[in-house]
């Protein structure tokens, strides 16, 4: 399957923004589409609100929005079972929401309040949830790939049947430790799925200006790790490929690479003038490939939902996000004593 998928995608359509959905994308039933819609919309609205709050000066520092990429994490999350771990980089709000972490705690971390998931210590890039098996939120590009490999090692060591979903970007894919990790993961047959979110840019550097091999699904070839290129804007394609990958890893066959072809609509972070791409390119992706719009259309056309029913979902989602924003705006700042806590076990 993997090999076939790779062959089918032999010529990488990196330079062609009009990536076609794989025609035989497996269908979702109504419940799946509804769940996908709701989850993706939550991330979209959360991120839109984050952007607004950043503009109002309520959020400071670095803040990377996930808008456009929602189908990747939501689709992958559908393939997991309880116990599976998730780890990612700094563009992490979507991953946390998809893992079921509370919007309030995420938003309050963005505003640096005591009710934030890291009590204001971490900010946008650094949040965790032991309860939800979310291992962060890491600001150093590529570092999480080794960590995810180690988590997978622990899974195998404990024979717990869990798989670690390890997310990173097209830019991160050029860090040396990624390949050190690939080698170990395959050598030790670790249950890890490497999900490369190829949104075509690493800050202002497009993939073809930084990568000799732009087919990221092939990045594990020399280690014998199977890989696939996936239309990351179509949640059904993400889900189908994700199932193959997770099943491969869980069954003891070792790591699997998924290149998710996706796109970020907003700038790299909030301070990005985005001069490295045309407005036209962004508009075309939004209009022709939006992951949420695709599901919305199916809900209306195939599942015959009414506009009002969809609006009801939207207002529920907005309620959650507004509540989170409200909390994050009024929650007090951390107590001054927090400056010295959680550095080592004992305070010093």
């Amino acid at each position: 399957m993997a090999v076939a998928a790779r062959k089918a995608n032999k010529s990488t359509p990196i330079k062609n923004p009009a990536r076609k959905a794989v025609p035989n994308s497996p269908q979702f039933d109504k419940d799946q589409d509804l769940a996908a819609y709701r989850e993706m919309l939550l991330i979209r609205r959360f991120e839109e609100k984050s952007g607004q709050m950043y503009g109002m000066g309520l959020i400071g520092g670095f803040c990377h929005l996930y808008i456009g990429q929602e189908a990747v994490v939501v689709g992958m999350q559908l393939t997991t079972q309880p116990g599976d771990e998730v780890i990612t980089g700094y563009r992490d709000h979507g991953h946390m929401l998809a893992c079921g972490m509370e919007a309030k705690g995420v938003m309050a971390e963005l505003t640096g309040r005591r009710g934030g998931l890291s009590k204001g210590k971490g900010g946008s890039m650094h949040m965790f949830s032991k309860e939800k098996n979310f291992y962060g939120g890491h600001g150093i590009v590529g570092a999480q790939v080794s960590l995810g490999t180690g988590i997978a090692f622990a899974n195998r060591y404990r024979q717990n049947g869990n798989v670690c979903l390890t997310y990173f970007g097209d830019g991160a894919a050029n860090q040396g430790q990624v390949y050190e990790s690939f080698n170990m993961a395959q050598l030790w047959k670790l249950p890890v799925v490497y999900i490369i979110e190829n949104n075509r840019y690493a800050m202002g550097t497009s993939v073809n200006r930084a990568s000799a091999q732009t087919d990221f699904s092939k990045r594990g070839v020399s280690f014998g790790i199977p890989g696939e290129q996936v239309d990351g804007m179509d949640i059904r394609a993400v889900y189908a490929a994700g199932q193959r990958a997770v099943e491969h890893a869980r069954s003891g066959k070792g790591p699997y690479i998924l290149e998710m072809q996706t796109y970020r609509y907003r700038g790299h972070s909030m301070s990005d003038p985005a001069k490295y791409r045309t407005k036209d390119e962004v508009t075309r992706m939004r209009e022709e490939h939006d992951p949420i719009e695709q599901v919305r259309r199916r809900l209306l056309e195939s599942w015959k939902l009414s506009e009002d029913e969809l609006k009801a979902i939207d207002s529920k989602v907005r309620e959650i996000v507004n509540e989170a924003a409200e909390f994050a705006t009024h929650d007090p700042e951390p107590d001054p004593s927090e400056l010295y806590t959680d550095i080592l076990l004992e305070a010093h």
Partner: protein
Amino acid sequence: MPRKTMIEAIRDGMDVMMERDDNVVVFGEDVGFFGGVFRATQGLQAKYGKSRCFDTPISELGIVGTAVGMAAYGLRPCVEIQFADYMYPAYDQIVSEAARLRYRSNGQFTCPLVVRMPTGGGIFGGQTHSQSPEALFTHVAGLKTVMPSNPSDAKGLLIAAIEDPDPVIFLEPKRLYNGPFDGHHDRPVTPWSKHELGEVADGHYAIPLGKAAIRRAGTAVTVLAYGTMVYVAEAAAAETGIDAEIIDLRSLVPLDLETIEASVRKTGRCVIVHEATLTSGFGGELSALVQEACFYHLEAPITRVAGWDTPYPHAQEWDYFPGPARVGEALLRAMEQ
């Protein structure tokens, strides 16, 4: 004289050297096409071509490692690590290769390399975008470590660094890029265009590495500072009314011990200020050197004001940052004895 921001001055320094010497190549993440995230290399690719100013993949180890090889051959790479906090993957190449090549090859091969790194906090960058790692470099034999505090010095020191026959770590306090920040984060910052140190001479000039500058002459107490802390110390002196002599070290290795010694012998008191964490910070080294050289002239214990021994916080940035109030307290304490 034209006034420039610190970024413009740094760009000018690279421009001058690229013009004069085709051994000089400039590269790093987003450095070519995009002109650098802080705009330090803007226009250099257009002017000198893609073979001399270019983008790299996100690979700090690769950037520095290849630069060491280029330098060994005889090129003069001036590379950018986008934030000093991303330096750690490259640390192996900096310490084990760049710093050791001359020694290891009995001087047959050298490493005329400059690694530029935006450094320090005050920009709400949190733990992975605010660190001041200078002591990790000053601890390594075979490296020079420089930190300018204004546009004029930045250009002259960068030119000296590029011309230097050995590897130089060039730390740029990013909070100073637009103006002299004194730690009063709730007040607007004066832009460099309104500050005399924003005057940057055209063309080529070098400021020798290892020469400190006295930013404020005084008789009561010597303050040793570098980077952003120079302005914090100035504010503290003004606010406490203490006649401090503020020395901007500019270069940590080599260090201008002569200027330091002369000042401390005169004032009999010494306060050391840095933004980096206290324990094993460069202040410890300075304190030891001052004590060794000036013990019999000291009238008060040497004190250090530094970042707390914590990771750089996100929400509590200004509780961490050694601002003018903390420096002022140290000045008063030094004067009490």
